């Protein structure tokens, strides 16, 4: 007896060691996946946090009465006033090239800001005005510490001379960082320091609205038919198989469908949230149908039997009793579907929602872009400042994804009933 016991001890130890190794393989796999998530989200959040700050430069602008015609305040050359203000501040700058790089310290938006200020307050003409202007993207990046300040001068964005100007501005407190309101209140721009996400956000909101208005009613009606009325026959089997397969069709194929049918056959407006929403609706339809069917299946047969028993028709039974009970579940499924549609980019590229659009769309038929497409566009831009904007836009997108999923979870927890 003791003999056979000692015989298996080494093999048992080996087997237990193997057991531990096996268990650790699973742990390591999860650690890799989760740490990838953390590194990805963490690095993007770190990069994007910079976009919350905007650098401003203070200039003393002399609103020369000779330059501004009091009768036509709006027509004055405000860009020239800004340039004069910069030259007054740095009188030592005389060479043409140096002047040009000096003007590059402030954004071209400065002229518009000054214009707006003077038009609003014409009484300022003839006086000196101290005003904060948006810095150019290069200066912004420098202040945020994203640009090289040492090493070979020819390979840097700023030469030592320019750095000298900037330092002297800094010393007198004429450079400050403020919260970047513009990022949340403006549309896209070619100038990174002026680009904002509002246009893309409104475009996404319109797109999702169209998507929801189409896919939710059609989805739940289809689910009600399949779950409550359809008899088991070949046709209904076909519909079912079809829906399951549609759920796995690559999203770009839906984009091709939208391009060929909605744009080329029906002639709907290109780049519009209407078409984007329709394409995304077709894409989310299977998700909604599958979720709604699960919700309907969870309603116990006793409810149906009771309603039928007191004389309700089948339609009444479904619409008065079964569907209301399943509604929270159906809504949860719809929100999860919408959250997927929110992050979808490829089909929107196909129907032209990838154009450069500055204006904030006012309706579903105006050209617009969407948040994920905006991310794609910015990610393609070479300026260093757009890197920050892209990351910040990703954070906005992820925050909305989390919010939508939270709403879905809350709905499920609040209304979920056990029968």
């Amino acid at each position, binding site marked *: 007896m003791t003999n056979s016991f000692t015989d298996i001890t080494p093999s048992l130890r080996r087997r237990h060691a193997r057991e531990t190794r096996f268990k650790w393989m699973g742990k390591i796999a999860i650690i890799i996946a989760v740490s990838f998530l953390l590194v*990805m989200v963490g*690095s993007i959040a770190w990069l994007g946090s910079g976009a919350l700050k905007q650098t401003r430069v203070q200039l003393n602008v002399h609103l020369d009465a000779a330059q501004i015609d009091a009768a036509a305040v709006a027509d004055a050359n405000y860009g020239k006033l800004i340039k004069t203000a910069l030259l007054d501040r740095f009188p030592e700058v005389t060479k043409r090239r140096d002047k040009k790089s000096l003007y590059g310290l402030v954004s071209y938006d400065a002229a518009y800001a000054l214009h707006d200020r003077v038009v609003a307050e014409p009484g300022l003409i003839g006086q000196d005005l101290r005003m904060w202007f948006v810095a150019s993207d290069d200066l912004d990046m420098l202040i945020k510490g994203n640009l090289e300040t040492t090493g070979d001068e020819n390979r840097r964005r700023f030469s030592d001379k320019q750095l000298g100007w900037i330092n002297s501005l800094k010393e007198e407190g004429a450079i400050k960082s403020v919260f970047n309101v513009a990022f949340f209140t403006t549309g896209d721009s070619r100038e990174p320091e002026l680009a904002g996400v509002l246009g893309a956000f409104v475009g996404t909101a319109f797109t999702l609205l169209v998507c929801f208005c189409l896919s939710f009613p059609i989805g739940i*009606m289809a689910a009600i038919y399949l779950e409550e009325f359809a008899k088991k026959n070949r046709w209904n089997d076909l519909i079912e198989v079809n829906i399951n397969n549609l759920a796995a069709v690559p999203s770009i194929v839906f984009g*091709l469908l939208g391009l060929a049918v909605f744009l080329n056959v029906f002639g709907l407006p290109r780049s519009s949230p209407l078409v984007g929403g329709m394409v995304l609706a077709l894409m989310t339809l299977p998700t909604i149908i599958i979720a709604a069917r699960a919700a309907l299946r969870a309603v116990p047969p006793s409810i149906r039997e009771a309603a039928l028993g007191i004389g309700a028709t089948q339609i009444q039974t479904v619409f008065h009793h079964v569907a209301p009970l399943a509604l929270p579940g159906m809504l949860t499924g719809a929100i999860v579907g919408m959250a997927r549609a929110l992050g979808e980019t490829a089909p929107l590229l196909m129907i032209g929602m990838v154009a450069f659009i500055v204006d904030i769309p006012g309706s579903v038929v105006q050209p617009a872009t969407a948040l994920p497409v905006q991310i794609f566009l910015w990610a393609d831009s070479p300026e260093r400042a757009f890197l920050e904007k892209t990351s910040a836009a990703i954070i906005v997108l992820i925050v909305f994804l989390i919010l939508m999923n939270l709403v879905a979870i809350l709905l499920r927890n609040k209304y979920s009933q056990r029968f």
Partner: protein
Amino acid sequence: MGNLPTAPFVSSNKTRRRLGEFVVYVLLITSALVAVAVTIGIVFSLAFEAYHFFQLISWQDFLFGTKWSPQTAIRSDQVGAEGSFGVLPLVVGTLLISAIAMAIATPLGLASAIYLAEYATPRARSIIKPMLEILAGIPTVVYGFFAALMIAPFIRMTGSSIGLEVASESALAAGIAMGIMIVPLISSLSDDVINSVPQSLRDASYGLGATQAETIRKVILPAALPGISGSLLLATSTAIGETMIVVMAAGMAANLSVNPLDAVTTVTVQIVSLLTGDQEFDSAKTLSAFALGIMLFCVTLVLNVIAQKIVKHFREQYD
């Protein structure tokens, strides 16, 4: 009872109700048919444009050509006027990136599924599962951005430090990002499959003295294999159809190469690059996107149908 005044009221209400109910019923059926109409719409619209394409380019040249450069001539005497539409480089590129993605996602996804289903305490499960769901919920454009921004430079740097030449838009970078994206898909499907293996099989194995790892490897995995292979097929189909990661992280150049350090392009990348920008619907260049689209649709459809058949068959086995 017979002369109660409600009788006529009920009957008139009944006819109205019947009509109303019929309308509602028709609406319900129509809604269900929308899903079918979408499929038919996809097939017909793609086939229609692809048909026009194959009038210009022969299908042999398309399927077996080894050169992809979809230029169409502006003038007839232009140099290199004839575009070549050989799809092989794209197919090879797509398969290469998908293979890299699956090589990463399969071990990670399966190992995490096994851990979640067999080892994790309910508390650990309740933390890890949502984390993986977040990974699945992150839009692919974010993965693409991350792949181009971090993974590709990292691979390039590592490669050059050991003396390898790595393209700045290597297949490996896109494949890694895509692999991580697919992990939650494989893990959640396989987790379901492993959970549906009956407890009696585990108990029998433990009763014979097997350790937990031995039970999983020798009993549960073989029993779950059909379901798991179904989930792997679904994941492959997702990888083939994935667009944004490859658009942002893989290249545009159609190289016929199986070296993961080279830049390759995929079917989806080409569809996007052909259709964003100016389009003329009579040029082979634009129409070729639809030929690529129908190919993509058919391949993913076949994979899905097989996967669903396998999974369904597997479920019935243990139900």
